[in-house]
């Protein structure tokens, strides 16, 4: 009797509850909705679409749909493919080397060494610095005549003449990659460290009882346990590195002779130096496709090996 009496109202409340919750949620979303739609969602879509037009800079310039014209032109633009090749070398080298260096540091910070606090703080500093300042700082460090790096190399007799790291065809890209590693290490280290601290200690104890050495503990416990964190942070690093701009813009501006012309810098010049908005957007489209394909394969392989 009581059951039949109380059941209907409960059902009712359930039916009303959903729409009411949704209405409340929408109200809470409202202040964000308009700016996000106008300044993020719309530009994203418009940006993709721009790649299929011949839009140019200027206030009253007509632009029209040109289909795949821009992409056809890009296909024969060797400079663009050069910058793409440089972008891929940059992205992979920075991401991989940064990961290895950060993993090493995270492992060290996860032990009971002294100076851990100091090391942790120092490790985080590059993160807080404006990329422009990082670039200026490294220009001072790598300066051919009064930079300390050249000074040290000469003292150690590793070179007999000062090297113009950022101005030399053969050293510019490696030098820029080193700076890229320096900048990105904190984020990667902190993330990996957080992952390390989440690993169950008893796993190591059990392994030690079974006679596993440090190396096999690392190989059979640490790495597999960290897999999700590793996949997440390397994917993000790859995206960030591929899309990075300010650092290299101030370090070399793409020079010398285009040796460090990352795709973003190339597209930026196309858009804001030459005013070819449509063409620059097409380059952006190609970049998106590449990133998505790359992530797709990377994540699929990772996830498959996990299963």
């Amino acid at each position, binding site marked *: 009797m009581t059951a039949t009496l109380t059941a209907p109202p409960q059902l009712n409340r359930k039916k009303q509850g959903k729409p009411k*919750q*949704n209405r*409340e*949620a929408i109200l*809470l*979303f409202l202040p*964000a909705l308009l*700016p*996000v739609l*106008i*300044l*993020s969602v719309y*530009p*994203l879509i*418009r*940006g993709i679409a*721009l790649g299929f037009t011949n*839009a140019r800079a200027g206030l009253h310039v007509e632009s029209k749909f040109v289909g795949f014209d821009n992409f056809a032109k890009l296909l024969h633009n060797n400079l663009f493919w050069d910058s793409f090749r440089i972008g891929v070398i940059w992205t992979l080298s920075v991401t991989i080397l940064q990961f290895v260096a950060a993993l*090493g540091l995270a492992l*060290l910070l996860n032990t009971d*060494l002294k*100076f851990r606090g100091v*090391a942790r*703080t*120092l*490790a*985080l500093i*590059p993160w*807080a*610095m*404006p*990329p*422009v*300042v990082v*670039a*200026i*700082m490294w*220009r*001072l*460090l790598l300066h051919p005549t*009064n*930079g*300390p790096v050249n*000074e040290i190399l000469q003292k150690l007799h590793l070179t007999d003449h000062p090297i113009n790291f950022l101005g030399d065809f053969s050293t510019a890209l490696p030098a820029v990659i080193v700076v890229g590693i*320096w900048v990105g290490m904190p984020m990667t280290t*902190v*993330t990996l460290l957080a992952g390390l601290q989440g690993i169950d200690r008893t796993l190591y104890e059990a392994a030690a009882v079974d006679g596993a050495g440090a190396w096999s503990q690392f190989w059979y416990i640490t790495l597999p346990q960290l897999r999700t964190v590793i996949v997440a942070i390397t994917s993000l690093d790859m*995206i960030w590195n*591929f*899309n990075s*701009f*300010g650092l290299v*813009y101030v370090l070399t501006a793409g020079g010398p002779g285009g040796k460090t012309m990352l795709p*973003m810098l190339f*597209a930026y010049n196309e*858009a*804001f130096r030459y005013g070819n908005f449509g063409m620059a*957007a097409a380059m952006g489209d190609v*970049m*998106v496709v590449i990133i998505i394909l790359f992530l797709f394969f990377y994540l699929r392989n990772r996830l498959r090996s996990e299963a």
Partner: protein
Amino acid sequence: MRTRPTTRVLQYVAVLAYLVFLGFPLLWLISSSLKSPQEFASITPSILPKHVEFSNYSDALTEQGLIRGLGNSLQISIYSTILVLIVALPVSYALARFRSRLRPLTNGWILVSQVFPVILIVIPLFMILRPLHLTNTIPGVVIVYMVWSLPFALWMLQGYVAAVPRELEEAASVDGASRLRTIVSIVMPLLRPGLIATAMFTFISAWNEFFFALVLLQDPQLKTLPLVLARFVGAEGQVQFGPLAAASVLATVPSLVFFAFLQRRLTSGLLSGAVKG
């Protein structure tokens, strides 16, 4: 853990190597900012300045563009941080508490906005803001920063909201408090650490931002600090390294102060975002 002495020594050597790699560049920048022009010109640079001089700082600060850049950066960063907090708080509350259809949409947007190269976004942004007369203005840059630091702010705050026990809110609603009242007087005070952390991240990312500012601000009067610094470098021939180093140190100070303040919470904050978000 029993660690052999040789391993221990190797570990310290490795830590030291990391510290040098990460710390030396900064040390050099600071030391450069304290060197006299004569010492700068010397062919054998020393790590620490022989005579500490602050003339580079006064030189940098008398530079007109630099002070203005500092002021512009400060204004833009503060305004966009306030806006982000106002907008992000209700949204992250809704994301953490309601299972509405907006949730997967928002998370999808957060992801997409990370993957897209900014060049694709900045051109349409430029085309949208220009007819509204918002290019080349501080409000224009502020709203752009607001929207573009929102994903990370939402991602962070969501985790903090989810950590606030639901029971507290239920108790308040039993006592007859409205949803708004509950958010303002129960959830917000508990969220203070999360709000502070989010505010700092937003401030630093606005303070450090370069690309959007480069495209949207052409007027020399409005240029932010990173733009002013980057222009100094561009004129390599006559560039004065001392004042440039001093200005660079000054540009890093706010981030470092915030950082020192935040350092403790950082690891746990990131983790809570990662687990709950």
